[in-house]
């Protein structure tokens, strides 16, 4: 599933710069992590995934950067705080806003076949002990 397909599935809109085909991050979305708990998100294998969240602070973007998320999508039409938007622009993290709830967003993506995070064929973000 490409980022653009994710956007369509979620009836979402791009915030700021829309990622182009040439972006390394613009390619495939490997899975999705849906959470408002960044502590949990940080323990997951985020590389190449979509981060679906209701949190709008800068930390969301930093977590996305640190874990190599492909994009962040804010649910319920929430817009990121200005500092978060600025940081995303700087770090080239694509941002989406969907009017849908977290539950419906997950449901649509799941139905469309976006794999569950830990089953996704992605390299480990952290080596298993």
């Amino acid at each position, binding site marked *: 599933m490409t980022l653009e397909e994710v956007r369509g599935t979620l009836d979402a809109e791009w915030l700021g710069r829309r990622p182009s085909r040439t972006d390394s991050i613009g390619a495939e979305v490997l899975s999705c992590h849906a959470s408002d708990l960044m502590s949990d998100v940080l323990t997951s294998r985020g590389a190449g995934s979509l981060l679906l969240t209701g949190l709008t602070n800068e930390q969301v973007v930093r977590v996305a950067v640190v874990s190599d998320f492909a994009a962040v999508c804010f649910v319920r039409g929430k817009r990121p705080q200005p500092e978060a938007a600025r940081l995303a622009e700087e770090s080239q993290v694509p941002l989406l806003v969907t009017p849908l709830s977290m539950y419906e967003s997950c449901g649509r993506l799941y139905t469309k076949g976006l794999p569950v995070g830990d089953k996704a064929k992605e*390299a480990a973000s952290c080596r298993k002990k």
Partner: protein
Amino acid sequence: MPEEVTKIQEMVYELLVREVMTKEVISVMPSTPMSDLREILRAKRISGTPVVEDGALVGMVSIEDFIKWLNDGGHACPVADRMTRDVRSIYDDEPLVQAVNRLERLGFGRLPVVARDTGRLVGVITKGDIIRGLLRHLEVDYRTAEMRGARSSHIFEDIQADRSTVKLEYRVRGGDFSRGGASAVKLKTTLLRLGVDPQTTRRAAVATYEAEMNLIVFTQGGRIAVELGADTMRIEVEDQGPGIPDIEKAMQPGFSTAPDWVRELGFGAGMGLPNIKKCSDRMRIDSAVGKGTRLEVEILMEHQGEPERDSAQARA
């Protein structure tokens, strides 16, 4: 700056006219009425155009010629009557420096470009084309250099020594939640620039992020020191208190003493230390209540040649 100037000088000799010229040439025929010229120049936003007959360049006509024509009464006549016939052109395979010199010497705004073999008009070159072309090539060069830097500069292969380390230090202020993770993001950028592989970088960044949040949430602040060796990365995080009373408990996933405000911001789920452990190859934590905590993390660096399936997703 001197470096860029040298670079541009090189490019002026290396680039060929055909690489920077405008290829979609707007031209007129000798039979085009002079009165049509204004609309053609205005619509295309150009100040002059080649005059072409059967593909061959027969003249140039410019806005200056047009003004002179108006001045002389503007009597209906074809372009052929007012155009400059003594056309200076340039071949498409000449180096850019020739175009620069010729434009300068002749005081022209543009030169028609002709193919050497067929003698046909293939383009037009202006000073604007030259500047744009140079900038574009400078940028391409810069990008190539940057990509090389981000992807495969192996700083340790360049260093000639029996042992070498790079030390990076970050200071973190306690309570400064809005800056939380800023050091981890900086570290990540730096490691990638140093040519550390994306997977190792991610592990280090996540571990550092967690440690940084701990400093911010629980302490008055502290120091993160990262030591980069040839095959090991060591991350040391130190603070001056309050210390962890029961490390074993703190290591349990889900155990947290984080205040509510931190939880509301999406943190404090009790996953910090366990996650640091997960990201590291070796972890050691010493803490004394009232004195402070010292965390040591070691990450064995991935070696080149190992499959890195998600490198395409890794943000440079």
